[in-house]
């Protein structure tokens, strides 16, 4: 989680702002020097900029406090005037077994919609525009997230809106949306039942970056415990009592899913792209709790990859295997990228993955991963998500230093071991486009088995 999710895109912000201010004119002695006429290349006469003095001695660490009801609050302070705060909930499509599929997506769309305090989304936007802040909600397969960013001074208001959005139930606006024909199975009761079971304090973490921990804990206690209760606790008719938390464990099966589709009209324009087929091959790697997790991350880095037009710089992986052995050799491959969760490539990936890594290559991948880790963890939204995910998984947060060191300890034999482990799992194929030349799954599976000695001949099948 920590590292694999480290590379998440910084979520799309809907910038909205902010505080009252007064008009200021900075005048030189003759009183005619209007600030709006001074070029930006010249300082404003008489204006003294404000700077912070960097004298503090505090160490950076993530503090975690568990409140009376099991809700965890985790935060870390940061140099700068803005903060990111939000809630991560262990909830998402993987828990939807007993419910109509799509509930999380539904909740994501309803996030920051109507609540008991705010009549509708517009009201929340208006409030935000006055106190300064932006909001965002994202759902993934296992984590649901509400996040807000804004000026640190407006933290209390941000927390208030957050508690409204996440805890109080935000679905009063639902009937309007539910009239749509296709989604009529999901109603208010289903949503509240789902939220009652999954949006519970012990499955939630309030995470923050850029504020004092005690201030945050006090505010969370005030808005999440003292002032408010979930809407379903006040009106038990809102929920269906027969449903409970789903604790089933994910089981990797492998599989083959192909969708034949004419993609010839996807990229039009003055110079259209050639028609492409998209193929993903996947093998089972491991959970982020597994000891081999970081070795898989390093392996992923060694494979690297990207678009064929840019061979990248050293930091973008120009020496990675997918560039050296695939993209630079076969001009017809448009894009090949290795993912730690899903492996997207053209079938050569695993063949090369089984060859022996030399030390220079390994060190390069390790350093690249370390540097990527640290660079990504500079931005508040990324730190925020990392804190939340780690605390949900482990109950505490490792500092980047921990992963930095752990990556440093990965050896060539670790890589060899995880590659073997992966190559012995069943293959998953997902493909879209014109696929009549794609071999069947057994053929591909036999080509990638580590001990298969005939893959060189069989490989020709791709040409």
């Amino acid at each position, binding site marked *: 989680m920590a590292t694999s999710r480290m590379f998440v895109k910084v979520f799309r912000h809907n*910038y909205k702002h902010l505080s009252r201010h007064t008009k200021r004119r*900075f005048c030189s002695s003759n009183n005619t020097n209007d600030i709006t006429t001074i*070029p930006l290349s010249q300082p404003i006469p008489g204006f003294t900029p404000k*700077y912070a003095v960097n004298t503090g001695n505090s160490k950076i660490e993530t503090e975690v406090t568990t409140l009376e009801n099991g809700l965890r609050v985790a935060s870390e302070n940061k140099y700068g005037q803005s903060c990111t705060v939000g809630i991560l909930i262990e909830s998402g499509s993987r828990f939807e077994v007993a419910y109509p599929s799509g509930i999380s997506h539904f909740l994501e769309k309803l996030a920051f919609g109507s609540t008991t305090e705010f009549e509708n*989304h517009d009201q929340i936007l208006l409030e935000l525009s006055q106190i300064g802040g932006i909001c965002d909600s994202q759902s993934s397969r296992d984590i649901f997230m509400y996040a807000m960013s804004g000026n640190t001074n407006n*933290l209390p208001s941000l927390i208030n809106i957050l508690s409204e959005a996440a805890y109080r139930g935000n679905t009063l606006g639902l009937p309007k949306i539910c009239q749509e024909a296709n989604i009529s199975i999901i109603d208010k009761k289903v949503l509240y039942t789902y939220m009652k079971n999954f949006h519970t304090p012990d499955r939630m973490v309030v995470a923050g970056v850029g504020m004092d921990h005690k*201030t945050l804990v006090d505010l969370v206690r005030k808005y999440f415990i003292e002032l408010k209760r979930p809407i379903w606790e006040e009106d038990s008719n809102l929920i269906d009592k027969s449903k409970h938390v789903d604790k089933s464990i994910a089981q990797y099966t492998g599989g083959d899913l192909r969708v034949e589709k004419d993609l010839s009209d996807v990229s039009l324009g003055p110079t259209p792209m050639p028609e492409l087929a998209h193929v993903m091959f996947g093998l089972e790697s491991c959970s982020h709790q597994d000891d081999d997790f970081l070795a898989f991350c390093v392996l992923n880095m060694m494979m690297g990859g990207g678009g064929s037009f*840019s061979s990248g710089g050293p930091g973008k992986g120009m020496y990675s295997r997918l560039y050296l052995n695939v993209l630079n050799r076969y001009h017809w491959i448009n894009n090949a990228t290795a993912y730690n969760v899903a492996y997207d490539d053209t079938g050569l990936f695993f063949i090369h993955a089984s060859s022996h890594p030399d030390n220079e290559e390994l060190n390069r991948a390790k350093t690249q991963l370390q*540097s990527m880790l640290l660079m990504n963890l*500079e931005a508040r939204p990324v730190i925020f998500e990392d804190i939340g995910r780690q605390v949900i998984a482990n109950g505490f947060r490792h500092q980047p230093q921990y992963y930095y060191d752990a990556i440093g300890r990965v050896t060539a034999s670790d890589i060899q071991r995880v590659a073997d482990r992966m190559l012995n799992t069943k293959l998953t194929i997902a493909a879209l486009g014109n696929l009549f030349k794609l071999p069947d799954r057994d053929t591909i599976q036999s080509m990638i088995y580590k001990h298969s000695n005939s893959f060189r001949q069989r490989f020709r099948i791709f040409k």
Partner: protein
Amino acid sequence: MRNLHPLAMAVRLLRVTNTFSKFLTNSNQHLKLIRCYSVQAATNPVLNVPETRVTTLGNGLRVATEDSGAPTCTVGVWIDAGSRYENEKNNGTAHFLEHMAFKVSVDILSDILQNSKLGEEEIERERGVILREMQEVQTDLQEVVFDYLHATAFQETALGRTILGPTENIMSIKRDDLVKYIQTHYKGPRIVLAGAGGVNHDELVELAQKHFGNIGIGYDTEIPTLPLCRYTGSEIRQQMDDMPLAHIAIAVSGCGWADPDNIPLMIANTMIGSWDRSHGGGSNLLSRLAASSYDENLCHSFQSFNTCYTDTGLWGMYFVTEKGQVTEMLERVQNEWMRLCCDVTTFEVDRAKNLLKTNLLLQLDGTTAVCEDIGRQMLCYGRRVPVSELEARIDAVTVNDFKKVCMKYLWDKCPALAAVGKSNMRQEILMQSKKFVLSACIWKNEMTL
């Protein structure tokens, strides 16, 4: 160099822009170098930003740093030498150099600038890569439309040419051309070494002296001057019958980086904002155009832009819309622009000012963003503009100032327009763009009546 140990760094190469080349190195200092960290209480109103320190070396090269004591840092070199300095014959050279920069297995920035071998074999290899990149860029319709917009708005001038250069040039650029370009433009006074994060200013200055101290300051030949780029209101359209959508950019002549009018234009840009269909709608959206786009299904997406160069710029709007909606959308854009000049309220301007300040603040998240900001400002403004000063400048703009500047740039101006799309777009645009130019005059008459 403490933070530029070859293996402990990731070098990110960013694109050559019209006006600069930039090389950024984002390096992770080993974490044992964690240093002081200032902690502010949530209620503390002090602007928590470190001061920028600037030192000029003997050869004119400037070193600018902001030390926030963070455990990571970014160091980058900015050079005032982009495609703006190219002519018809060598258009594409700066971009070619961008490709060569990291192909020569060098480890640190000074090597890249001064000791690049520029081997013939590597040059040949990159030629193919650039042509491939060109193909890629041309499938991105937004890029295509913006290239067309520059081609028409700055026709016959350096800004009208693309950054990649035409295919003929990519095929014909030789080692000598690259070397000559470096010798002409990579001069001390035109280079800024910027650092942000856990970076010690004195240390960086020392390193700069050691590694960049030998870069020349003067010219044996004639000193290259910044070629003037003239704006021409005009249009360019490419008809693509099988495309379902029209991609259109419309702009007026904007201002240069340092022009004080840039602040109101930035506010105006924020007020129009950007939107796409997944964003939803609502009457409290800052942008009225977004609200009506949502309600009336006017377009798939739009995006207001304010592109600045040293002495000129383009201020306008890019949008993607369906068949039959082009005329309507252009009319709405025109109405909205007209409203900026005459009809805008204090409430709207205040909200846009607040939003702009938040955006500026949130953009400075992470050492890479800060480093880029320092480098860009040092070249554009010749100094670092403190955040608090920028906020003061935004605060100082009144509704009247705002209207006055919008009037100056929008009112009665002939726009430049670039469009790629389906067949009847031609007529739709023709109808509206005539009106657009004409109505600019009509606006004036109607409004003064």
